[in-house]
């Protein structure tokens, strides 16, 4: 995108006043998406992101500048702007930094030919629409979208490393709305990953459309969620959002280096019931959160965050790892060249436990079964979280009974993790459609989990008593 010699010169220029390290992040990304509404292809959008971000790190300080103008003059200006963070030191001028290109392992295939068979994507949207409407006459609206993204990055560092990655990302999603009398219910299903369109020969758009319709028809007949404390069973796969919010964010190294997370300084301590083990993995083939190298040029890794309830470590980017005296874990990610990297999750999941799903259900007198979550949020200082249930049911005397609508779950991360009383033997990764937001930056992630029981949680419905 820009030549190696210029990248080397930019890193050197950025370090003119010194600094612990500097990096240059070059990005070229194109995304094609189509959207279906009212049974027709509503629009096509094409997006191109092209630019360079330059960072200088001194201690706990970072200077950052970016440019969408790729001329050497504009890029050198950006390097100068980034170097201002170190400006109290004397100007050492540019020194020569030789870059050498490193090769990384590949956890996904990348087709750089940049030919997209758009007609096939459009056919996928139409197939999902047809299948959702055929599923049930109560389906009154179907919205579907598909996007095909290809992101190429080149990262040069002041240590002389040059790393490249090419990341495909396909996202296919269907929302179905069911209507009956005065009630409405909606269902959403998405899938894809760092894969090719061939993925949808296995997970067919028709099956995804029918699944969205099924959830919509469940929700249209759902009763208002109960309010108050009760037992909760979290469904396998999509339930992994719970780990992402209740534990994952609190283990990102920026919060922990600064001491603002409730998990700060607690490595080696018990933070969850001994049934709880949590991994974050950047190396799972084709998952949304998988990275051959992260956005700082560090190889993606399999990390054990919590093992049998004990906190083992944090997810580290370069700046925070350096200050904490540990190695980075391949967790430095950014939304685009316009953003400073942050420590982020990749694919966060819990491995299988020993309980059968039947046992877990049978042990539950009165509770809520959260088969999937529609989203969640956490506040990392105290660890309070909230989740919105996407598909949920009441559990009465060991049986899954009536569907409930619009249930929110509130709780506190470590408290909820201490109350994990059963972990199922049915671990799996969720369908691939999750995106995580932090500090205004959005990145694709994966989650996964077996069926898990939490002995007590607050459900925020409207049915009091």
């Amino acid at each position, binding site marked *: 995108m820009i030549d190696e010699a210029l990248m080397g010169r930019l890193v050197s220029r950025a370090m003119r006043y010194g600094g612990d390290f500097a990096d240059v992040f070059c990005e070229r990304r194109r995304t094609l998406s189509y959207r279906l509404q009212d049974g027709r292809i509503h629009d096509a959008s094409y997006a191109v992101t092209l630019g360079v971000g330059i960072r200088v790190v001194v201690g706990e300080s970072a200077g950052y500048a970016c440019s969408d103008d*790729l001329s050497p003059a504009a890029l050198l200006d950006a390097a100068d702007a980034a170097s201002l963070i170190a400006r109290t030191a004397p100007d050492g001028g540019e020194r020569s930094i030789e870059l050498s290109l490193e090769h990384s392992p590949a956890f996904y295939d990348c087709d750089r030919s940049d030919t997209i068979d758009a007609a096939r994507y459009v056919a996928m949207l139409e197939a999902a629409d047809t299948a959702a409407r055929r599923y049930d006459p109560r389906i009154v609206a179907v919205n579907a979208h598909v996007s095909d993204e290809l992101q190429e990055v080149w990262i040069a560092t002041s240590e002389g490393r040059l790393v490249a990655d090419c990341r495909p990302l396909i996202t296919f999603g269907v929302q179905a709305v069911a209507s009956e009398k005065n009630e409405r219910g909606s269902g959403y299903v998405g899938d894809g990953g760092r894969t090719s369109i061939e993925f949808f020969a296995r997970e067919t758009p028709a099956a995804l459309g029918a699944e969205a319709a099924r959830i919509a028809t469940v929700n249209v007949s759902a009763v208002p969620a109960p309010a108050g404390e009760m037992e909760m069973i979290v469904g396998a796969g999509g339930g992994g959002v719970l780990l992402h919010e209740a534990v994952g964010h609190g283990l990102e190294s920026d919060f922990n280096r600064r001491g603002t997370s409730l998990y700060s300084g607690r490595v080696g301590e018990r933070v969850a019931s001994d049934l709880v083990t949590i991994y974050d993995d950047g190396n799972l083939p084709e998952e949304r959160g998988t990275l051959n190298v992260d956005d700082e040029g560090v190889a993606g890794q399999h990390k054990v965050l919590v093992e049998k309830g004990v906190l083992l470590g944090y997810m580290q980017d370069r700046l925070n790892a350096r200050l904490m005296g540990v190695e980075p874990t391949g967790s430095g990610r950014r939304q685009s060249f316009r953003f400073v990297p942050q420590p982020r999750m990749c694919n966060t999941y819990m491995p299988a436990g020993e309980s059968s799903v039947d046992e877990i259900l049978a042990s539950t007198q009165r509770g809520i079964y959260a088969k999937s979550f529609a989203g969640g949020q956490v506040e990392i200082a105290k660890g309070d979280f909230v989740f919105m249930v996407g598909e949920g049911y009441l559990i009465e005397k060991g049986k899954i009974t009536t569907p409930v609508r619009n249930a929110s779950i509130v709780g506190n991360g470590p408290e909820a993790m201490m109350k994990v009383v059963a972990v199922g033997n049915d671990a799996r990764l969720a369908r691939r459609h999750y995106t995580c937001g932090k500090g205004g930056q959005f990145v694709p992630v994966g989650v996964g989990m077996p069926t898990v029981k939490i002995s007590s949680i607050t459900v925020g419905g409207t049915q009091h008593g």
Partner: protein
Amino acid sequence: MDESTAIAIANHALSLARDAGAQSAEASVSIAHRFNAEARAQVVAKLEGSTGKSLFLRVFRDGRKATLSTTDFTAGGLRDAVTRAVGHADLVAPDEYAGLPDEAATDGAGLRLADPALAQREGVAKVAEALELERLIRAADPRVTNSSGSHYHDAVGVTALANSTGFSAAYTWTRVGRSTGPVALDGEVKRIAHYGTAARYLSELEGLGTIATTAVRRAVDLFGARKPPTMRVPVIFERDVAASLLEDVFAAVSAANVAVGNSWLSGRVGERIGSELVTIVDDGRVPGGLGTSPFDGEGVPTRRTPVFERGMLRSFLYDTYYARKLGASSTGNSTGGGVGPSNFYLEPGSISLDDLIAATPQGVLVMDTIGFATEHATGTYSRGARGFFIENGELAYPIDEFTIAGQFTDMLAGVDAVAGDLRFEGPVVSPSFRIAEMTVSGN
């Protein structure tokens, strides 16, 4: 960075679109210089300064629409992207409502969009503000032991719009903000609060002292917070939380949601839905407002639209496409690709928040919420929350780890008091208000 440069880029993109076969097109160009300083304790933790450009293009061919957004301004790159974007329209279904607005125009008089003082400001003075905010939050209360950082940020930008009917216009805007995130230690528990403010004019921004004390109060007031019992009580929403609730109301009056049946207000214009106190307005021409602009994302002049008047639903908010589809006129609410708020707000009352609390024998004051569980199709609201339990008109004790939930129909009908503390700090704003009864779920 000037308006003529941005207009020239927009016009160039239009000519490329025409060359590629578009019958009509619209190009919007934004160029902005953004500055951000973050301080933590005595250290400047982050310093960012960049000028960025982006182009957003909508093209139409035989009623088929496609869009392009790009930051690639290289000669070959731009031509290639525009050509591809026009080509992608081939697979789109023809739509009789798609197209440029019937009339585009601009009127920027008196809008106070840009503070000339901002472009002149030195970086050193900006960084000093972030450092001072850090000092102030720590000085405000000894229990503040840490922070997630204090920020000063500003942007000076130009937005230009041109379309193939010959319309072209541009305006210069500024934005400045300050925010902080003190962490206070409540025994073993860390209490974090965030508070910030933004404006177009530096002189209209809340002072550093007020920001620091507000943020610190939000952190330390919650010391010893406990889970409340599950109950149905009056709920007071403090200003910022009230604004987030108004965002859900906006979603329900957005024609983009109404048109696809994703709104609990579909088909209800002319119905009395809220209480007498519910007057909600979208006004794109509030002088100095952060949602103010001379024209919207497709060149339609901005205006003032009453959305609810004394509880009666008067109008949805439209861009050109959804207006044609639903048989209405655009209200100047196009974002370029969809429907968005300009300055969307609840008309303030006259009492203070303190008086509102004093007038509440028993209830809950909500200071902060987390989550985003609103089902717009059914109007069901639910959030995690923290704040205070109110007894005998006084803040009795802090509460957290609870949820509040209700149906929007009941909530708007239940608005029984509105405070006078409205500030135009964002596109969707609200004064504090009280709802007569909601479900609070705790123990």
